[in-house]
């Protein structure tokens, strides 16, 4: 399968481990970064990873940050993405089987590597079981965002990053 993956700078090592884990299993992985531990911003990588999925360049997406919340939220805010943020295998299975989830999010500082691997394996291998009821729920979710064209805007965050560079955001 073709998997799009992304992370923030807190969990790059864990992302790298998962990339290798998936490649060893024969999957093709698109690594959207980040690629090092230099401070950056999770919505950039959530959006990049999601874009490959909605544009059909990848079958599924995996996103990882510290808790998973920030990057999975950013991915889910892309039209066509149904992302599940999980800490257990059961929810991963349900999200794929019933909601045809196309992105799975995990907290790299919350969930250990062994559990993470089983969550991802289950997410990839579980098949969506279409019913009239869940088709309608999925349509309702997908219809919530009307104009999703911002997914293709490469400059969506430019002004914010400029403010960052100027020191506007400081602790």
């Amino acid at each position, binding site marked *: 399968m073709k998997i799009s993956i992304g992370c923030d700078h807190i969990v790059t090592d864990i992302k790298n481990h998962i990339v290798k884990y998936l490649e060893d299993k024969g999957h093709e992985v698109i690594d959207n970064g980040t690629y090092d531990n230099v401070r950056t911003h999770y919505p950039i990588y959530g959006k990049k990873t999601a874009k490959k999925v909605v544009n059909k360049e990848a079958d599924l997406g995996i996103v990882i940050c510290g*808790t998973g919340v920030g990057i999975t939220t950013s991915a889910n805010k892309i039209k066509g993405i149904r992302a599940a943020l999980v800490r257990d295998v059961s929810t991963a299975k349900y999200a794929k089987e019933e909601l045809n989830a196309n992105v799975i999010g995990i907290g790299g500082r919350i969930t250990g590597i062994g559990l993470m691997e089983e969550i991802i394996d289950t997410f990839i291998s579980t098949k969506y079981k279409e019913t009239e009821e869940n088709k309608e729920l999925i349509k309702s979710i997908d219809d919530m965002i009307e104009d999703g064209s911002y997914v293709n805007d490469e400059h969506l965050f430019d002004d914010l990053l400029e403010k960052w560079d100027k020191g506007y955001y400081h602790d």
Partner: protein
Amino acid sequence: MKVIIGSDTKGFELKAYLVNFLSSEGYKVMDMTPDPNLNFVESARLVSEEVLKEEDNFGIVIDEYGAGSFMVANKIKGVVCAEVSDEHSARMTKEHNNANIISLGSGIVGKTLAKNVVMSFLNNNYSGGRHQIRVDMLNRLA
């Protein structure tokens, strides 16, 4: 600050438990789903729309796994919804993501853990600072 809460059918019992617990702790709680027959699209929308009315509102959305409610709430601009089942995520997402809603799976977390996850969220504060650029980015989406 108000706690806005709602659930679908399967989350109804956990919702009732949390409404009762939070009220007894002195929180102002608004139950958006007295009707036990809603699906998670309906319940999560009702909660999200109410949460967005005031800046310091905090929402709780519940269904069996928490996954459906998370998808729905996070499609709405201005919502940062955290699907959580541990106390550390609850604290960190309040501090770093300024999450305004948490999603719980009634089939996944027990009542004691659910209660403590909610309290871990309520007892912590957003840190702002460098984290604000990421929240600003999230608000560009959806």
